[in-house]
């Protein structure tokens, strides 16, 4: 267990170094940072001073080491556009995205797993057919269409829910949450449904096919042959086996959602990291882009590690090694 963990950590560090190298190259070589930082019509002397001040005159390797050192201390540079430290910029946007993703994931799991089980157990019932058909529509419709439709129905026509923004926020020091106010909660509903829909379909279909596989396995037939109660077999013996791949997929999906909630955030004008990223691409705000790259890389490495560790808890076969 400890060996497995240490090997995983070592791999994570290597992956992060590679990501850092790419981010660094982007930072250093995509466009001239000096050119984009100085005012127009600056003299060559002014540019050189800035170049030295930024440490851009030193050898590339030294620069890289410095870059990694800065990243480790939490310094991700200064945004060209906002002229603020990128770190605080990211941190101010992170709560919005994380709250959205958490709500969307919980929604997807809470609805997707039971529906998947239902479709596996009663494939011919009306509800399973309805689910299968609607989720097919859900998965084939692009996110922005779903989002716009929801806005049209619930915000424009019915006027039940707000169409954009996070509503009233409660400040908890570093974290600004929308969970503690009514308008904040109402604002979460539409974007999280939009974001959850694809994930929900994926989880539903995965649970369904896994469950069908597991139910035809020998150990489930053996459980039936021992006359165990049906509910017990389905809920405890079969579902646990069927949920193994769901852990992996959910983990990866959370990463995907945090990193690429861009479309949903744009549609709902959600002040999260996706919006920050789209704006940075348009500007182009290279330090923000590089920091974003690092952050996404870090996120995926962490999630993969957590999934691996979770696996060893769920599956005893992985524990012995």
């Amino acid at each position, binding site marked *: 267990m400890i060996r497995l963990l240490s*090997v995983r950590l070592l791999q994570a560090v290597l992956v992060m170094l590679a990501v850092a190298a790419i981010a660094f190259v982007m930072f250093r070589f995509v466009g001239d940072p000096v050119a984009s930082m100085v005012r127009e019509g600056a003299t060559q002397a002014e540019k050189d001073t800035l170049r030295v001040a930024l440490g851009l005159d030193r050898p590339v390797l030294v620069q890289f080491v410095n870059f990694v050192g800065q990243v480790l201390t939490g310094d991700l540079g200064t945004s060209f556009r906002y002229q603020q430290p990128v770190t605080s910029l990211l941190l101010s946007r992170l709560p919005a995205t994380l709250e959205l993703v958490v709500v969307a994931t919980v929604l997807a799991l809470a609805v997707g797993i039971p529906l998947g089980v239902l479709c596996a157990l009663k494939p011919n019932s009306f509800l399973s057919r309805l689910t299968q058909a609607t989720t097919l529509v859900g998965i084939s419709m692009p996110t922005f269409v779903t989002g716009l439709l929801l806005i049209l129905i619930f915000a424009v026509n019915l006027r039940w829910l707000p169409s954009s923004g996070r509503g009233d926020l409660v400040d908890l020091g570093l974290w600004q949450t929308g969970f503690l106010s009514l308008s904040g909660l109402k604002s979460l509903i539409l974007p999280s449904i939009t974001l959850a829909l694809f994930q929900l379909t994926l989880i539903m279909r995965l649970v369904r096919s896994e469950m069908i596989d597991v139910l035809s396995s020998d150990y489930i037939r053996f459980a039936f042959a021992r006359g165990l109660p049906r509910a017990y077999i389905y809920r405890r*013996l079969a579902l646990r086996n069927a949920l193994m791949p769901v852990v992996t997929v959910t983990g990866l999906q959370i990463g995907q959602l945090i990193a690429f909630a861009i479309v949903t955030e744009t549609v709902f004008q959600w002040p999260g990291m996706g919006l920050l990223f789209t704006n940075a691409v348009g500007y182009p705000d290279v330090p923000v882009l590089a920091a974003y790259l690092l952050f996404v890389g870090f996120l995926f490495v962490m999630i993969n590690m957590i999934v691996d560790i979770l696996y060893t808890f769920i599956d005893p076969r992985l524990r012995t090694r």
Partner: protein
Amino acid sequence: MTDTAPPVLDIRNLRVEYPLANGHTLTAVKNIDLVIRPGEIHALVGESGAGKTTVGNALMGLLQAPGKIVSGSIAIAGKPIDLRTGRTEGIVPGRDVGAIFQDPMTSLNPLFTVESQLCEGMLAHLKLSSKETKARALDLLKAVGLPEPERRLGSYPHQLSGGQRQRVVIATALACGPKLIVADEPTTALDVSVQAQILKLIRDLADERGVGVLLVTHNMGVVAEIADRVTIMQNGAVVESGSTREVLTTPRAAYARTLIAAVPPIETRLERLPVPSEETQVTLDARAAVRRKSTKSETGSRDDIVLSVRDLAVEYGGHSLIPGRKASVFKAVKGVSFDVRRGEILGLVGESGCGKTTVANTIAGLVTQSSGTIDFLSTVLGAKREKSVRKSLQMVFQDPYSALNPRLRINAAIAEPILFYKLASNADEARQDARTLLEAVGLPADAGARFSHAFSGGQRQRIAIARALGPRPSLLICDEPTSALDVSVQAQLLNLLKDLRDLAGLSMLFISHDLAVIRQMCDRIAVMKAGEIVELADTEALFTAPKHEYTKELLRLAPSLDRILSRQSASE
């Protein structure tokens, strides 16, 4: 065990049907009668598709969805099953009927401990406290002879060997004190030595606890070893039923006679195994054609050494992420040496995990050896092989169901290697060759237009053999080619392989765990244990005067119809 006690199982006139998509119905079980008394082991024998498993499923209420009991009655311990609901008042599957499945590797849930799986049935049926259940679970594990039962309660299935898992499965079946146990091929997936132990365990449990056992099997040796009575089924109907001795020594029905005759005897070597249908003129003509083609490419005498393996060693693992540290290495094969001569069949026997398949895979180039040399037709085989070498070395795999590409027509599947090795000038000629090969293995030439799913296991294995013969190999590696097949089909295939060997000086490396099959097939035999060859001798010498202890042990444990029957008659 008196005759006045009610039978634990009483099946009268049972009929099970499956409605098919085209409006017809398939009758899986046709009006069978079966009675089992307490403490009696009743074997239900037949080939795949005979309906024997359906009988077991019917009485456990496990029939798959469209299948249903149409008529007849089943009574367990004197209590009848309601045919409409499949349930019995007062009889609970699991509590009153225990089940043992074929494959112990898959019949236990991998995510739960032995204790949890043993206890859940007792908690559901017996309403015991968790403390009583645990004590009982411990007793059960002791009763089935699992070593270190206290520790094993906390184990997960993957921490146990196949034999240990089957013991756990048997303990689970016994947990609630059933009157009847349905054992569906309980030892088919196990090695001979483990099989012998498990059979003895089942026999003892029947004797001591008075449990009736319905033993579903296709293995006549197993039947002879432990069954009191036997019922032979064919196409859903009973063809013969009686005491084991009677049925096995003096079978009355014609089908029973052929089935028993098809069992390869371990005591003697037969030229050919008796099979119902022998080769037709078409087959013989096709074989003559195959022979003409092969002899064109073959030169050399029968004493030439085709394959020479020296000090072959294969290791798995050993790569570590942390530099300078060597991870644990598993030595699958440790210094194996042998020769195969032209036209010879060399047998490789041993229990699962002894490394015999690794040897085959290494020779075939699917695994790379860590040391040792393989000389094939006087060229040293390395990791990268000449096309001509790969052509001359073909393989037949164990499972005919996964060995054929389901999207390829049979003709195309057989013609593919012929074209690849440029043995035919164009596609038409290759297809013609494919047709000849199909006839040579005893299939009609027009079978080639169909896909593999249209064929039975035995037919698929014939197709796989035809495909392997296409490139006109010098050496054919057969890895357990008949272990997935019924006895009568096995007999036909073994005859076929022998015929093909005689055709063109084809040499074979024949791998099997079944000593009787090995005796029928091989000229010389290498016995493997834990990655080493412990004995290599001529077949007759090995069977009549085995030298190594392990060989003697294997021979002693192998179930043998004749030996058991003669022992029984001697004791009477």
